[in-house]
């Protein structure tokens, strides 16, 4: 008797637009959404389920495992059902000790392990249209303190797409695509939460629709003020905070949908220009720089299989320097 009740309560918090996905994606998403009701002791469980639901390739074994995991988490968490904004200190593993403690290789007062933990915890859910065929990338990230007084941190996610499909009106196809997102989060004494999100959308180019979004303007995946949802335009990778805003972008020629999603990897911290950790990143025989305003981002074109037909994307640092990176 108890099981259906628990299950039904969990379903309350499903974002019904997930229904747009395929059957497996939907159900996997639904089980990932179960987590929204219950504070977890570790975000890794939630990340596991979110990544399981990323594609439509779950095997029966992973499928059953995800159901079992979600059910177990649900039952274990019953009785602590109220939610708070963002992630707890226990979930992230860091609080005020993120500042001025331990290894700080990039000299920004933040502990490197804390930077990694925060980037992983807040990595956004990036949705794509089924027509997307250039979503491959080698994401990198950077984090920096916005001050201990505000307990605020900025996290930049460099999506680093290998190519721009150029299928839609506007800028032609080219190697590399230097779109990005920046989250500003803060620690309120108990929880970490998102305050602002900047999404690049053809920044400094035609159809520039880059924008700072306040947390009240963002759609959330599972965790309110935790996992922001980003809509990436089909093969152009311009980022928007809503499907409808995307679809009306660039003379109405952008197209977004919630067909499948990616969560950027967060195991490559490039640091900042005043403390670079990965000044040059090699992939195959090609090199990219995240700190050279004159080095266009070419998506490691020689290492990839892309066929350039209009050069490369703008230099990452030409954008990120404007944000103090």
């Amino acid at each position, binding site marked *: 008797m108890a099981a259906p009740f628990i299950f039904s309560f969990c379903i309350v918090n499903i974002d019904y637009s997930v229904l747009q996905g395929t059957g497996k994606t939907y159900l996997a998403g639904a089980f990932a959404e179960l987590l929204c009701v219950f504070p977890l002791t570790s975000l890794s469980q939630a990340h596991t389920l979110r990544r399981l639901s990323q594609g439509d390739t779950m095997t029966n074994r992973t499928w059953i495992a995800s159901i079992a995991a979600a059910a177990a988490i649900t039952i274990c968490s019953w009785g602590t059902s*109220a939610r708070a904004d963002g992630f707890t200190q226990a979930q992230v593993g860091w609080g005020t000790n993120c500042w001025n403690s331990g290894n700080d290789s990039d000299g920004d007062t933040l502990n490197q392990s804390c930077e990694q933990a925060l980037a992983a915890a807040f990595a956004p859910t990036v949705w794509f249209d089924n027509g997307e065929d250039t979503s491959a990338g080698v994401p990198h990230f950077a984090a920096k303190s916005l001050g201990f007084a505000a307990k605020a941190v900025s996290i930049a996610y460099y999506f680093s797409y290998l190519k721009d499909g150029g299928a839609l009106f506007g800028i032609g196809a080219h190697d590399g695509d230097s779109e990005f997102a920046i989250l500003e989060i803060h620690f309120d004494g108990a929880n970490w939460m998102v305050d602002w999100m900047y999404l690049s959308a053809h920044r400094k180019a035609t159809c520039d629709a880059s924008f700072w979004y306040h947390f009240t303007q963002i759609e959330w995946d599972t965790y309110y003020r935790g996992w922001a949802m980003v809509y990436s335009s089909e093969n152009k990778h311009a980022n928007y905070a809503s499907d409808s805003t995307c679809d009306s972008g660039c003379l109405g020629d952008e197209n977004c949908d919630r067909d499948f999603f990616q969560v950027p990897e967060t195991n490559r911290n490039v640091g900042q220009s005043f403390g670079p950790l990965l000044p040059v990143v090699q992939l195959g025989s090609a090199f990219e720089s995240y700190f050279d305003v004159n080095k266009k981002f070419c998506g490691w074109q020689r290492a990839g299989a892309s066929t350039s037909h209009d050069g490369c994307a703008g230099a990452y640092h030409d954008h990120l320097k404007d944000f103090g990176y």
Partner: protein
Amino acid sequence: MKRAAWVAVTVAAAVALVLLMSRRGGSSDDPAPAVSSKPPPAERPGPAPQLGPAPVPAAIDDAVIAQVLDEELVAVASGVTIAELGADDAKPCAGRPVWLRARLEGDTGEGRLVSRWIWASEQRLSMQPGATARFTAQAPGRYPIRFQVVRSIEGKRIGVLAERTLELDVVDCGSGPPPLRVEAKVMGGRANFTALAAVPTRGGYRWEFGDGEDQASDGPSVRHDYPILELRDREQRSYRVAVEVAGADGTLLRATSSVILYGQVSPPRPPAIAAELGDATWDEAGRRWQRRLEVDNRERPVITWERGERHTLHDGDRVASRNLTVAELLTIIENRAAGGLVATVTVTAAETGPGVRRITDRLFGHDAAGEEASLTWVPWDRDDFDPDPVPPVAPRR
């Protein structure tokens, strides 16, 4: 397995809907909900968890702040003062958000100072940076909210330059939904408002947008544009929006809500290239549409146009793209200074067949400084032309 799961989800969703309605007791009154056609994120009703490191008293003193935020607070002399401190609703309802705002005067430090709010709610202390903050109290009562202007000194030492406490009385507005409320969706300076009535109405809405403008509408939804150009980067400005409508019994229903606008700073861009596309004319002999294109470059170094693209958008969002030479894309009538030109753009009837929604052209080149230059125009859009008969008649605009 899969079918069983689907059935379970369907049944569970139905039960969940009932539970949802009974637990929430009405919708949130978020003054700036998520901008999406999708369901907005849910507010968090009900008791909040005890998440803080330790329960804190309703009164907030420096010792509690120092303990929870792991700081050493130091009073610092300064020229900044807190000129105003308030909420957008003097008596907010329990369970509904209210916006807090402060205004500073004097030496505000050119970005070196941090404004922050600190309150004790749901048995824990919370800190929110910023000159504005959204506060939600789950239970009625008096809530002291501390506002501070601070700056980092060194390590965990925080200098307090100014502070004041706002006493906010949160009242019980009942558990049911209000008879009328306003939903706002804001993007840039454009706001879409919808009046949501929980009781029958006679229709005929009267709106006040808080900026001196008002409007009457037959339906419950209106759109209004606010000026945001003078706002600085992420500076916030709020407007109090009100709507009135007569209930079916003649009672006047009124609802108010705050709408928050956020300033944006555009990145520096190359000077614009001026382009003007003339009206379309139908050439019966050639069975084609033609438009005059004028391009003027008054600010950038000389531009050399190198290639073009024509993209055809079909129903179903399918796009067909073609690479063209400049001569294929344009019939140049006159070359002007610095890459300016006058040309004819042609779209044949064959290109505008059934299922074609729009044609977009792109022209690419580089200026003498090596910077990329591009132009975009839409020579044909189905929405601008009467689709039948073929050949099409004159465009509607």
